[in-house]
């Protein structure tokens, strides 16, 4: 009779790569949560100035700053871990040579940087304040 070993519920705590994987998976909750939050802001905006300024008041509280900082760290972790594995999914050949992984991942970082710069310019550079 073969013996079947049970997987302990703590399997993801037993090795670092598994733990980091679970952290990466859980960070998607933060990403989804923040999307929900942005949707709520848009909803508040559609309701008129009173609702909107109430929502803005909520954001500027110290608790909200702390939450934003934690959220930012989680989303950064999510983004970086995913960008780093993109070369595994996107494989291109130039002639017989494979396009190096740094170029594929690098293109994602460049895109990220460009988008962030655009958003920063829209928010800060045009001189209009929110």
């Amino acid at each position, binding site marked *: 009779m073969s013996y079947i070993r049970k*997987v302990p519920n703590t*399997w*993801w705590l037993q090795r670092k790569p598994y733990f980091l*994987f679970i952290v990466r*998976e859980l960070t998607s909750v933060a990403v989804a949560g923040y999307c929900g939050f942005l949707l709520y802001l848009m909803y508040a905006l559609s309701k008129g100035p009173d609702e909107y300024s109430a929502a803005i008041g909520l954001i500027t509280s110290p608790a909200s700053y702390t939450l934003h900082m934690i959220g930012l760290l989680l989303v950064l972790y999510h983004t970086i871990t995913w960008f780093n*594995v993109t070369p*595994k*999914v996107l494989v291109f*050949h130039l*002639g017989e040579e494979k396009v190096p992984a740094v170029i594929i991942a690098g293109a994602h970082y460049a895109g990220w940087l460009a988008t962030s710069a655009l958003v920063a310019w829209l928010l800060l550079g045009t001189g209009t304040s929110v």
Partner: protein
Amino acid sequence: MAKTIELEIFRYRPEEESEPTLQSYEVPFNEEWVVLDAINYIKDEIDGTISHRWSCRMGVCGSCGMMINRVPRLTCAAFLKEYYPRKIRVEPLDGFPVERDLVTDMDMFVSKLTDVSPWIIRNEGEEKPVEEGTYLQSPGELAEYKQYSMCINCMLCYAACPVFALDTNFLGPAAIALGQRYNMDSRDQGRDQRQEVIASHDGVWHCTFVGECSAVCPKDVDPAGAIQRAKLSSTADYFKDLLMPWGKRK
């Protein structure tokens, strides 16, 4: 005094015990020895009742894979000095039923391999007669799949995969990589046939991209990459079918 190192070996003798145990052995520490040498030493000199699999002793046959301190490795490629003076725990590969001691039951793996039809499939009537010679392939076409063809079926990737450990229905890393190996072969036309297995729920979509299969692979096959690429092409198929239901895929 000569140096020694402790090996803790997973023991399971179905006729004697219903639960596995760990048994410790003290073996000479030799700089040149790999874990497999130490297990062979135990079997030859200390305790002949230990069962384990091995053959080539040079990372080719793929039969000596075991969990070494909880990480799946080829025991013929893991040196004692990497662990010394810590003790080394050797267990059978995770995820598979244990037949005896370090020997697992690998039937499940073999049937998964055959599930992906790992041979060149040609459309009916498009087979080249033998007189016409072999199918030619350019170095570039070979490069497309060569990496996936390096697999030695050691099953380390399965032992590293928590998805497989939790649900053994998962087709798993090596089988999907092998399917990709044929899908990407310019001589093959069997992708549609393999998709039924590879793109099924128990196929690529079970994978959550932990990535450890590729980290432990002794041959740099990168099964995790193969799976993600298969996900991407399956998704492309889906959209092609949706947008162009009249167009038949090759």
